[in-house]
């Protein structure tokens, strides 16, 4: 199971994905570019969820940081006239990480259902606050400025391409860093924490600190994802923090599996495709289609879609 026993292809894969987006991006239809951009944003959040899942923790409130990222991007535009999407993503990451750093002191003490429900409660508090703030558009939300990169506003024809290339570069960089982190001693603790916390403590590591660090990294990733989604969609609303949004991320994380940092992105793309196909083919029962596909994955691929690629190792 250990990723080191054979050659690790994660970094080349990430590079290839970025290259593919740059080269093939202009050939794809615009709707597909948008779908992929949203998948990228959701994949980042799910990557954060995956970090926690590896330690046996399920957050039902990852949307909290997705929303913080989105509203940070929106506020930069509304109050400071900043529409640069790189800046928005960086600020989104820092804002989310900062909040997570503080809340982490509380959350790192809980496990299991308590961790899940507490994280969900925190995100619903943000939802409630935003729904009451009429200056930020209440539940209707607000529009955010059209995306720019390095002060340049791309032409209408190219804006979707520029957004996805910029988003993908940031996502690939962040994912590579996460991959690197997973190879550090602190990163490797996750499965051990999941298996036996007491043993980890006996070895001299602090479980609480390890979880706290994971929580902050996950939040930063979600913050980037939120800011990317906000600038791509052009609109933010409190629904970004609603528990059903968190549910979507869990759906993607389960669909993808936790074996590789690339898995959440594949999961998000597949989720996007199933979602839009279901919307198309059965506008009245699309939720059922989504549910059935998740059930099928859980029954036949309990370790997620990524196990399609790794099965040989187990054999």
């Amino acid at each position: 199971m250990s990723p080191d026993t054979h050659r690790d292809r994660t970094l080349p894969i990430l590079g290839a994905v970025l290259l593919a987006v740059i080269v093939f991006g202009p050939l794809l239809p615009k709707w597909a570019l948008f779908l992929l951009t949203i998948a990228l944003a959701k994949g980042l959040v799910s990557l954060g969820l995956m970090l926690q899942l590896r330690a046996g923790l399920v957050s039902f409130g990852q949307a909290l940081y997705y929303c913080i990222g989105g509203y940070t991007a929106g506020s930069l535009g509304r109050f400071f006239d900043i529409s640069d999407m790189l800046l928005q993503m960086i600020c989104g990451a820092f804002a989310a990480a900062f909040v997570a750093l503080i809340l982490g002191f509380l959350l790192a003490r809980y496990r299991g259902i308590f961790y899940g429900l507490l994280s969900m409660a925190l995100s619903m508090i943000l939802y409630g606050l935003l729904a009451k703030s009429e200056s930020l558009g209440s539940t209707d939300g607000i529009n955010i400025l059209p995306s720019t990169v390095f002060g340049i506003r791309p032409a209408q024809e190219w804006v979707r391409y520029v957004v996805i290339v910029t988003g993908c570069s940031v996502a690939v960089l962040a994912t590579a860093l996460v991959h690197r982190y997973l190879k550090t001693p602190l990163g490797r603790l996750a499965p051990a924490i999941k298996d036996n916390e007491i043993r980890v403590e006996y070895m001299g590591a602090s479980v609480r600190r390890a979880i706290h660090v994971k929580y902050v990294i996950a939040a930063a990733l979600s913050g980037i994802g939120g800011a990317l989604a906000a600038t791509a969609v052009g609109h933010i609303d409190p629904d970004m923090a609603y528990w059903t949004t968190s549910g979507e991320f869990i759906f993607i994380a389960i669909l993808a599996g936790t074996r590789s940092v690339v898995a959440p992105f594949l999961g998000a793309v597949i989720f996007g495709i199933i979602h839009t196909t279901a919307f198309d083919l059965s506008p009245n029962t699309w939720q059922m289609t989504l549910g059935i596909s998740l059930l099928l994955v859980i029954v036949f691929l309990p370790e997620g879609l990524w196990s399609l690629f790794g099965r040989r190792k187990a054999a």
Partner: protein
Amino acid sequence: MRNLRNLATAVAAALALSPVSVLAQDAAPVKIGVVAFLSGPAASPFGVPARNAAELVIELMNAGKAPAPYDTKGFGGSKIETVIIDESGGTTTQVTEFRNLVQRHNVDLVIGYVSSGSCVGIAPVAEELKKLTNFFDCGTPRIFEDASYKYVFRTSPTSTMDNVAAAMYLKDIKPKMKSFAGINQNYAWGQDSWGDFEASMKHFFPKIEVKTSQMPKLFAGQYNTEISTLLGAKADVIHSSFYDGDLEALLLQASPRGLFKKSTGVLTAGETIMHKLAKQVPDGTILGARGPFGPYAPDNVYNKWFVKEFEARYQVPPTYPSYQMAQAIMGVKLAWEKAQAANGGKRPSNEQVAAALENSTFEGPGGVVKMAIGKGHQAIMETAYGLSKVVGGKVTVTKVKRYPAEKVNPPEGVKAADWIAGGFKQ
């Protein structure tokens, strides 16, 4: 290598799942994207009645069975096709699906959106994609106040009108009232409705006392605490912009405690449930229909046609979302045909249809619709209020008063909030 093959299989599977993109249209049908809630709590009161109206009206238009001037087949002789999409899933989903409608399905125009959040989010995207989009139901006046659009329209009046007219109606029938209270859902619609109503009341009744404003959470379902507070407040009038399920729950819970017998209810969206709850609506409750729809619809040929066909097909009378959808399609049809005539009988471009719809006036089952504000992109209509009266087990309305469109809507270029604060200057 096997990894690569697996990857290829997965990609192939993903591609197989993705919908086949439809070939670009060759002159023949006009493709309309129709978006409304088909799931969730807003489906039964708004989305489904609207979708039903869309299916009915489009079918009749395709058969050439609508009254003149809507009697040409389809849109200017071209058959209408629809792509129906659920409005659930949040703004990100809606923006994604809007782009899919335009860029994958190549729809010619989009008619839809119940939620103001969807409308706020979609408007700039419609503009980016240069796609004619007509919002049929959402209420917030912000859309055309915060920005101006070339391709975005709304053929229904804003929610400002509902609450301003409610205050005017109270001034007409209860000039001596001394106090009022409110119960509204704690989200944008409820907050805006109460804000507009409160400000209008303070203008018409300078000495009025505001007893209490209850803001329970959306779709809470349980209102006994709020009902107790409202009973204790003893206000002359209670304002509520509740609709459907929440309104039903409120009335069912308030009825045994006699709340709306002690204080007159002003239910600005009361029409959504008036056919269901005859026993729970005490006589004399003020009912609104968000415009001249349902019981307030004028006695014109379009209304007779629409009600007859709707009841024949769905066995229930149409409520206001159905009316709004019908007039949204009718307005666009006229503009399309006008643009087509100006284009020498050839299929008009989105720009030409938009130009024809701008500042246009047309008549539908709810009466005259004037695209008079928001630089000719936002409709104004007259509106009406009346008192409920149960006759033979059915709720009807009496003492109906009608208010002309210009009296209950802000003039061009004035924000609704400023117009109310400035004392309704025309």
